[in-house]
């Protein structure tokens, strides 16, 4: 077995007396599309927030490709090669969709303000590159026709695609998606799944929170099941379907 790409080790997080994440450990293998499922309030998004540096941990640590992420600020976590989307999309609302994408890659010469005075040529050249790349990614995510729109005018499903498109502008080692299919219509959802599979074939590793079981069962392996802050089960789709504790956590829903 090769080294896991992302390793979560005994992570705890409480809010007041409430234990949102209560000792979670699991490994995401390199090159996999891992799924993270569980009932509402299980602590999945909280775990994403811990991994991406938005929340501190009470104890435990997160390791990405041998590098400890715990204690890093969100921008440093991103710099280490981990990109995540948000369950409730967070576009830059009054910016064009194109610029929502162009802002992402690092380093950008023009992000140092003085370069815009003393090296305008280099900034311009880089902007043209970024723009070309953004146009490719927009096409890949079916967003070309809204490239010039203000991001806040997009539909709910398009916001989800924009979340994905933005992080594809970077070259992360692992992509964390928080409910990418929520609110996305079935046709678009098939597109989305195809995109994820295509990216995975190109070598991207994923960790995906998703309530849509068709999506999870068809693309995710391994699957991690969380409930009440704890890891209930890990295994493949067939194992998840047949495990009694998982069925119990979902109160007998058919999954």
């Amino acid at each position: 077995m090769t080294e896991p790409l992302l390793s979560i080790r005994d992570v705890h997080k409480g809010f007041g007396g409430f234990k949102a994440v209560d000792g979670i450990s699991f490994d995401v293998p390199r090159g996999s599309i891992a799924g993270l499922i569980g009932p509402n309030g299980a602590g999945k998004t909280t775990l994403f927030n811990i991994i991406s540096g938005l929340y501190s941990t009470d104890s435990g640590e997160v390791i990405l490709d041998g590098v400890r992420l715990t204690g890093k600020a969100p921008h440093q976590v991103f710099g280490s090669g981990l990109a995540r989307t948000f369950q409730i999309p967070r576009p830059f609302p009054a910016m064009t969709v194109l610029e929502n994408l162009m802002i992402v890659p690092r380093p950008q010469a023009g992000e140092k303000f003085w370069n815009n005075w003393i090296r305008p040529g280099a900034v311009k050249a880089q902007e043209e590159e970024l723009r070309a790349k953004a146009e490719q990614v927009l096409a890949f995510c079916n967003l070309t026709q809204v490239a010039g729109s203000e991001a806040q005018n997009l539909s709910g499903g398009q916001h989800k695609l924009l979340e994905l498109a933005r992080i594809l502008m970077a070259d992360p080692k692992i992509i964390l998606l928080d409910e990418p299919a929520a609110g996305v219509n079935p046709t678009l959802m098939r597109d989305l799944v195809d995109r994820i599979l295509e990216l995975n074939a190109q070598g991207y590793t994923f960790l995906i929170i998703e309530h849509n079981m068709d999506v999870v069962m068809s693309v995710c392996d391994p699957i991690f099941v969380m409930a009440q802050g704890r890891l209930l089960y890990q295994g493949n789709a067939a194992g998840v379907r047949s495990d009694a504790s998982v069925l119990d956590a979902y109160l007998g829903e058919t999954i």
Partner: protein
Amino acid sequence: MIGVLSYLIFFMILALVFGIAVLGLNLQWGYTGLFNAGVAGFLAIGGYAMAILTGPSREAVFGGFELPFLVGLIGAMGAAGLGGIIIGLVTLRLRGEYLAVATFGIAVTIQLVCLNWEYLTGGTLGLIGIPNPTHELASAPLAQNAIFLAMVVALTALVYWGLQRIVNAPWGRVLKAIREDEIAAESLGKNPALIRLTSFVLGCMLMGLGGALYVAFIGFVSPFDFLPIITFQIWTMLIVGGSANNRGAILGAIVVWAVWTGSGYIISQIVPPEFQAQSGAMQAVLIGLILVLSLLFRPRGLIGEKLHVSRHAKL
């Protein structure tokens, strides 16, 4: 005729000097969303730095280095920038109205220091005899002011150009991202603390430049030049002109300064002498009224924000 012309020149000098400070505030608030309610404090730092660096030496008061005007300008920007770094480091973890309260308090503190630290600032008397560089170039007051105006126009143009270059660019895009959604921006690899501080300090430097020009033009500096009402005026200029638009910032400075001085004149003509003492308060109320009307009927200002940020990303 000459009277009107010389008044117009005088008016435009002050309008553009304030305009430079408004451009600084626009960088902070318009582009980055930093609520700096202490503009007067940074004008004061720039103004006093100018006075200390270029003014005549005097007994029992620090400074009076009689340095060249240009050194005074650069020194004033440096001093205000340094003040910005120190104040920024302690306050920028604060957000929104908390930052406003903190910066407001700091500006009041700076004003009190100007009032009381006599060795540095000359206390209530202020510092007088600050050389105006145009006095060496011409003897007629009209010509002197015309030269000063030409210089202020040139400086405003330079500041405008410099700002447009960096805000309509990847740097400005990051500022806007942080203003719109700091959490999204940091999750996409941007360092909000550093970027907020940079924008804050650059804005403070422009306020320092405005304060220095003001002092050099008026020829003296006193703590009463930097009362909180100045902060209020600069803010109104920005909101009326159009936040996050540098042309709007300059236009707002001219329009609001016109209303301020115009109303002062009208009040002096129509209000009976026994109420003249309240004329300043009446002007302030009028400015407040414009601010409210602007927020109600033209919240984006006379010239509002453009959608595209980087000039390389126009569609």
